[in-house]
């Protein structure tokens, strides 16, 4: 049995579901960012797998995966800076305790 496109897409869907579960159940903002990284990895697997099996001669999937990796690095830097700012002013990084704008 050869490995096909469906195998990769199923693995990516499972990884995406795990990342979503982490985002929904974590209290720690850093751990929520880890869940987001898992979801972005799942999308990258999808992009590269489609490139391999639907258009093997093209490189568009690789290019978009590289753009996603770049934006993931930006998102991690800004997100973790926000976590640092929240920790400095509110002395907590648990998202269920940061409720200044909730009434």
């Amino acid at each position, binding site marked *: 049995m050869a490995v096909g496109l469906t195998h990769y897409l199923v693995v990516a869907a499972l990884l995406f579901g795990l990342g979503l579960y982490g985002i929904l*159940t*974590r209290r*720690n903002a*850093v751990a929520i960012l*880890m869940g987001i990284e898992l979801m972005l990895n799942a999308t990258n697997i999808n992009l590269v797998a489609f490139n391999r099996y639907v258009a093997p001669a093209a490189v568009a999937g*690789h290019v978009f995966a590289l753009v996603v990796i*770049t934006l993931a690095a930006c998102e991690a830097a800004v997100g973790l800076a926000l976590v640092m700012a929240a920790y400095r002013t509110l002395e907590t990084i648990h998202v269920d305790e940061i409720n200044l704008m909730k009434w």
Partner: protein
Amino acid sequence: MGELAAFIILSALTLIPAVVVVTSGNVVRAAMSLIPSFLGVTGLFVLLGAEFVAGIQILIYAGAIAVLILFVIMLTEGGTGLAIRQLNEQRLPGIVVAGALTAGFVVLVVRTAWPLAAGALPASNVTAIGTAFLTDFILAFEISSLVLLVSLVGALVIARKEL
């Protein structure tokens, strides 16, 4: 046969640490488990013939982002102690929502007839990626470099001590 074995091993290497990432009560253990998960994804990229993306994945994800996350855990030690509850009360809704979405994705993926194209991969596509970035995808290239610059400055401004 060898490809299937490699695929199964790399998928397990990706998914089992990912389970630890989302369920572990120890945040440092969760952050360390990200690294084997990223390396498993790297292996899947190599299996798919995307060597350049695999190299960038190791550099950016397994190198930079994992270290960044560990540093922030170190700097915010008040929130990451072992005695602190790390999971909220949404465990059951979380399982239901994530499980339903994943099941939906899997059904969708398995039942769709994808327009597969046969054809051999080029021996090396690094040159093609560089050419594509500077011709067809020049706008995406320029915008992502701009976003990179803005987020660098923004992260410095936000994390600075006094505003």
